[in-house]
């Protein structure tokens, strides 16, 4: 079973929930898919044993074969190729690695070479298999790293995916083949606004989902009203408490700070198993 923990708004407690769920259950594999700034390792403290480079294929032009026809540059949706006479300038950072230029080139002057954009790290957090993707600083594309992570998921386990925030491509890539999606939000107007965007996204992807309210006690009750009106299951409320924030600042998960929440996370997994699509 694959459970994605996502949010819409950033900083609502995705990693807090994902890590606490992982610590509360047996047979978990954890994957941090927030490859622009993975931080679950701060709480899970894994030992990394394997590092696998992630590459995308970018074009290399054989100038002896190139006729300068410009078909490759015309095709490129990301303007990563510019043709000057019979010279082709390649801008590898703008290339999305689709391979279209290689196919369309009538002279077969284009070959593809790998370009490293980040790393996949694998290891163990105690007896829990752990993975995280790391996108190199300055690289614009997170999805190829998340796609690589997906290839290493062990469906015989309870796979917990810590998603990036937002509703853009990297989030879709994390959510799309999950069996259930937990949306973590805070009970504020910002939290509600971005939750609504995230709800639209999971509905489009047809992934069963429910909501966890973090920092319950601040803000207002608009998130709860919204969930009620939309028929969205409210899975859990995590209280607004200073000791949780203090523990977080030391890299301690909430189930260590408030052991009484552990049972709530175990119950949560039962609810999810019943509602998930696998």
């Amino acid at each position, binding site marked *: 079973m694959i459970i994605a923990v996502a949010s819409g708004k*950033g900083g609502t407690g995705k990693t807090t929930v994902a890590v606490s769920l992982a610590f509360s259950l047996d047979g978990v594999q954890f994957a941090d898919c927030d490859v*622009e700034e993975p931080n679950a390792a701060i709480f899970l403290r894994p030992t990394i044993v394997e590092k696998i480079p992630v590459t995308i294929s970018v074009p290399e032009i054989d100038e002896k074969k190139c006729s300068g026809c410009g078909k490759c*540059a015309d095709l*490129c949706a*990301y*303007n*990563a190729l*510019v*043709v*000057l006479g019979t*010279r082709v*300038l390649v*801008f590898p950072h*703008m290339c*999305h690695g689709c391979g279209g230029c290689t196919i369309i080139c009538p002279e077969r002057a284009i070959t593809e070479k790998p370009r490293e954009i980040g790393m996949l790290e694998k290891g163990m957090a105690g007896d829990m298999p752990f993975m995280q993707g790391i996108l190199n600083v300055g690289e*614009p*594309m*997170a*999805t*190829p790293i998340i796609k690589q992570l997906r290839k290493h998921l062990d469906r015989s386990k309870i796979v917990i995916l810590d998603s*990036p*925030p*937002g509703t*853009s*491509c*990297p*989030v879709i*890539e994390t959510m799309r083949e999950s069996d259930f999606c937990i949306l973590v939000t805070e009970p504020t107007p910002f939290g509600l606004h971005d939750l609504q965007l995230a709800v639209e996204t999971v509905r489009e992807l047809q992934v069963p989902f429910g909501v966890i309210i973090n920092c319950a006690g601040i803000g207002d009750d608009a998130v709860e009203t919204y969930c009620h009106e939309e028929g969205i299951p409210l899975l859990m409320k995590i209280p607004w408490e200073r000791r949780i924030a203090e523990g977080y600042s030391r890299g301690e998960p909430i189930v260590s700070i408030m052991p009484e929440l552990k049972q709530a996370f175990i119950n949560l997994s039962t609810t999810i198993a019943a509602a998930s699509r696998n």
Partner: protein
Amino acid sequence: MKLCISSTGQNLAAVIDPRFGRATNYIIIDSDTGAFEWAENFAATAGGGAGTKAAQLVINKGVQAVLTGNIGPNAFAVLNAAGIKIYTGVSGTVQQAVDLFKGGKLQAVGAPTAEAHAGSGSGSCSGKGGCA
């Protein structure tokens, strides 16, 4: 000499657009005869790669120099490879820029003057979790 000036409008009285890649229009002018035309910059709204596409557009017009406010690294690389001279820091109207150029008051630059995406505002690809 055939010049390209990034412009917010379609004639010589128009104000210079300070961005090269995401300029609204380009005025293409022959500095010797004063004959000019304008071209819409179709790259201005590109999700990404506006600089390289705009540079290609300008190169296809056969210009020998570009006058603009700022230019980013990718557009600079393309124009430079095509042997086009680049003059930055230009402001005011298109006519004023042409006069400064003809009076030899402008200095060609040898490096880009803006970061990538500087002219894209809060475009869809800026910031975290952008397009992929």
